[in-house]
């Protein structure tokens, strides 16, 4: 066989694609669509949950500050040893 003469390759017949192939591709698209996770919806839900958690931390921190300030009541210094109502 003469390998320099690669023109023999031009004799290869072109083949038509079967009609069913388009439907196979379409069904693959459908399958991909079903398996796709709606990233936008998941993102919105996740940011809502994170927002709620941050709000909770903020308000919990704020209320504990109030409690702490309530505990810091100045004690009145009593200079005698008598009890009350004595």
């Amino acid at each position, binding site marked *: 066989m003469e390998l320099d003469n690669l023109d023999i390759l031009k004799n290869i017949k072109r083949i*038509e*694609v079967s009609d069913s192939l388009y439907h196979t591709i379409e069904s693959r698209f459908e399958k991909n669509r079903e398996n796709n996770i709606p990233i936008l919806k998941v993102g919105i839900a996740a940011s809502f949950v994170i927002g709620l958690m941050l709000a909770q931390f903020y308000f919990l921190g704020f209320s504990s500050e109030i409690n702490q300030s309530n505990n810091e009541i100045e004690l009145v210094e009593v200079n005698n040893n008598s009890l009350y109502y004595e």
Partner: protein
Amino acid sequence: MTFKNIYNQYKNLVFNLALQYCQNRQDAEEITQDVFVKIFDKWQTFRKDADLKTWIYRITINQSLDFLKYKQRKKRSFIISLFSSDSSYKENRLPDFDHPGILMEQDESLKILMQKIYRLPKNQKTVIILLKIEDLSQREVAEIMKLTEGAVESLFQRAKTSLKKIL
């Protein structure tokens, strides 16, 4: 341009190009499916000023080469399975030569030549397929392969030498 239009315009180009790489109708159909799914997925990233045909050629070539790599891996695992007791591996037997465009010709020398091309390194194989089977010009091949025309010519000469060496 709708997806259906692109499909109708390029389906035969994609299928026949894939067929030259894998030399099997069933595999070529699988590659064609993968190529059009990829075209659909990547349509947003395609620069509209670029040449659609060149882009489709590139996707098909890459997909075909990936498929051959995957097939080689399967073949290796099959060979390993021959030495193992696990019979489930034996179901991975690869399909035989089934290129309808060559079988129709009933030309044994053409079949032998195609089987030799199959064994070439991927760049040399691509050059032969694009220049000699797809009948593209050297400039078009250079654009598809992102090479200079000189590099394409040198690859082609190397491919011819490699073909002579393959017994």
